[in-house]
């Protein structure tokens, strides 16, 4: 069964359509990459998927269950669909450790000691355990983004949404974040990634979707999209981003 599914999703900001008839299915342990120009609707798609934005038509399903059902609590949904942002959005008033603990403790209501040992293990995995007591301002951008990813993982989500997580980074820091994502993909984490890193997408994605003006123009395996794009728009986009 699919973990996350979008069916004919429509989203408008006022009169302006941002998503038109978007459908996609993400199976467990698979990675899907969304590519497309800035403003093509990638971020909006991700936000609609975890109910940070409401949708105007269509349906979003988690483990086959419709999230359009009014009985569904969006807070419970978001605990399963984690999201990482372009600008990290770490909480500057909390230490690295407390950033990671915030969700487990105050959304999941978990015991501090237990959550803390798990958080420290996660921080150790990204080599930042020694910085647990530091405040985020003291970390580099790459370190901050890795903490942000760990903060999402601490929720033990079913699926991880990543919104251009390397776009705000200094080029020298992009590698460490992509390395972490590669590790996660290898470990079988289900991910929906909006990205500009084509080489990375080709490497980790099981499916690549090209989005233009709110429409999924073309989808396929990395080989199909990058080596043999069918649509003129896809070809034009790939030429531009080389």
């Amino acid at each position, binding site marked *: 069964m699919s973990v996350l599914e979008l069916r004919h999703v429509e989203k408008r900001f006022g009169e302006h359509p941002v998503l038109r008839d978007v459908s996609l299915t993400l199976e467990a342990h698979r990675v899907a990459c969304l590519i497309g120009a800035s403003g093509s609707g990638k971020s909006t798609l991700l936000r609609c998927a975890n109910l940070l934005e409401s949708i105007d038509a269509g349906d979003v399903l988690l483990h086959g269950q419709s999230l359009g059902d009014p009985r569904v609590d969006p807070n419970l949904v978001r605990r399963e669909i984690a999201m990482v942002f372009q600008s990290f959005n770490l909480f500057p008033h909390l230490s690295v450790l407390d950033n990671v603990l915030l*969700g487990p403790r105050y*959304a999941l209501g978990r015991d501090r000691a237990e959550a803390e040992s798990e958080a420290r293990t996660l921080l150790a995995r990204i080599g930042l355990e020694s910085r647990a*007591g530091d*405040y985020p301002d003291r970390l580099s951008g790459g370190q901050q983004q890795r903490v942000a990813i760990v903060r999402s993982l601490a929720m033990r989500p079913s699926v991880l949404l990543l919104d251009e997580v390397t776009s705000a980074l200094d080029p020298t820091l992009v590698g460490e974040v992509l390395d972490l994502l590669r590790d996660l993909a290898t470990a079988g984490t289900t991910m929906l990634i909006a990205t500009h890193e084509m080489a990375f997408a080709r490497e980790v994605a099981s499916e690549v979707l090209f989005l233009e003006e709110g429409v999924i123009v073309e989808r396929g395996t990395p080989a199909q999209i990058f080596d043999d794009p069918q649509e003129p728009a896809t070809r034009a986009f790939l030429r531009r981003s080389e």
Partner: protein
Amino acid sequence: MTDSSEGTGPDPARLYLPRRKVAFAGRRGTAVSAISSVAVIALLVSVFFWAPGGANVRATFFSFHDMWVAFRGDPSKGLLSVGSGLITNIWMFLLSEVLVLAIGLLIAVARVSRSPVLAPFRVLATLYTDVFRGIPILLVVYIIGFGLPALSLGAISSQSPAVYGVTALTISYSAYVAEVYRAGINSVPHGQILAARSLGLTYAATMRRVVLPQAVRTVIPPLLNDFISMQKDTALVSTLGAIEATRAAQIYSSTVFNFSSYVVAALLFLVLTVPLTRYTDHLIARDRSRRLAGAS
């Protein structure tokens, strides 16, 4: 002009400060600033001594004898102590500050909420801040202090003037402080809220754990500013008949026809407010350095 023919390179002195500026640097700079401070103060004091009415002002405003008697009070002459009057000011503003912090926060949170359930509270909160920021505090003091007793409503109508004063100050200042909080809440980047909500935190938990802690840090200086202002406004409660520092000073002044008691009251208020302002600055600096230095 340097002589480059000696082959020693350019003259190092061309990079030096002008000599006049060297005098103001380092330890000598401290001495210079001390001297200039003394000179400015001396100038101000000499104006005070040489002005035609200077002697008169010194006798009526700065008589040490009167200042001391006003501070201590003299029951045999019916003079109340400005010093013990200040204790009334202190407990009035301590109590008001605690109440204002809590009530102002509730109002601010009601104003920024988008929940339809809270819609009536949002309207009320907006109305409240509009009305009570618009009415002079003195009038609120009068309305509460003379209005509530007139209702003849048992306990509500039989409190001491200081209690009515605390009520009036709390009502007025909650409106100001609510707006300070609201500005702080609005200054928290939207990404912070998105991040917290995407972790599955409820609106309330997001407010409590993410938005408010950051908002409060931002608004500590303006908040403390309002508190300093409120410490001074406790003097308005004197209009209800409460004997606090300014009222005791006024009684002294009107009994003896000497204004030195007001200077005593002013100095006592400074003793209260200056440590508070210094402490605020210290808090801000500490918070800043803690975040930048990364100590745990």
